[in-house]
């Protein structure tokens, strides 16, 4: 019965999910997202986030495509500041140095912020995603992150449920 399906049955195992180190540069994240793209070009979506690990190998965060997009706003501000002129110079250069060297850890979402349990139902995962506006959630079992569940995975199962109803 699709409605009884557990998150663990539909999640992507943590070992299969793209991952980076928290000290990695954002270039590495871009490369990783590109490599994880579906095998065919076009409208497909695979991963919209990567997992972030610290130097002890613990999972600490999640870096999303949307997080990367926010960098555009920073750059936009950057240009406006330049237009404002010399009085902003000192402030601007300090800020510029800080954002230029941005690392993964600076823009990731902490992994413990919102999670779902491996034994939760798929419907519960769907609710959290809609309510919190997330496209992917870490799946926790016994305090350990064991997988990731994406909106795509949830949609697949709920679609199964709706189509079954129809028959």
């Amino acid at each position, binding site marked *: 019965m699709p409605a009884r399906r557990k998150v663990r049955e539909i999640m992507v195992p943590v070992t299969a999910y793209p991952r980076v180190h928290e000290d990695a540069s954002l270039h590495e994240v871009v490369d990783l997202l590109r490599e994880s793209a*579906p095998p065919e070009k076009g409208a497909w*979506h695979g991963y919209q986030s990567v997992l972030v690990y610290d130097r002890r190998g613990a999972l600490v965060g999640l870096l999303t495509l949307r997080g990367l997009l926010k960098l555009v706003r920073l750059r936009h501000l950057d240009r406006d500041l330049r237009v404002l002129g010399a009085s902003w110079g000192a402030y601007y250069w300090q800020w510029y140095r800080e954002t230029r060297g941005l690392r993964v850890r600076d823009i990731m979402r902490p992994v413990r912020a919102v999670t779902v349990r491996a034994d939760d*139902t798929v419907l519960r995962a769907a609710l959290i995603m809609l309510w919190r506006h997330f496209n992917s959630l870490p799946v926790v079992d016994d305090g350990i992150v064991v997988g990731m569940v994406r909106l795509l995975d949830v949609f697949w199962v709920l679609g199964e449920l709706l189509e079954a109803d129809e028959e």
Partner: protein
Amino acid sequence: MTGTLRVKDFMVGLEHYPTVGAGATVLEAVVALRQSFRRVEGVWYGPQLLVVLDEGGRPAGLLTLRALLHAVGIKDLCADVWFRSEAWSWYALRQLRPDSTMRVREIMRPVDAVTVHPDDSPEEAALRMLDHGVSHLPVTAGNGVVGILRVIDLLPYIESLL
């Protein structure tokens, strides 16, 4: 070098997206979107939206996966069953029947709500996505919608800023 690149250099052509008629039911849209999913090495891949066509076959709106999940009534459950997890899935099962009279045109985002032009800069497109909280923009020229721009399509541009 991405400095001279425009939205048209990043977008994915409309022909790559699955479509559904504006008069289709929500359930028909769910079926259409699921059919465009593919499984590769155990992981699902798929588009996150359907292009909605009007009676004349012209793009009239975008229907995202998220909007479809909303339409089948999932979010309505939040208010009253959030903490009743024991009975939860059974309750939800009974509730999760899409209103068969609800049509795609009622829940789609009209193409002219937020758009971007093929000759706009990627920066303009990115700021529009951020301002409107959307991940997909229809790319509209004089003669209609020519493509869709997603956040992931802008990756080469974002990389040029790093």
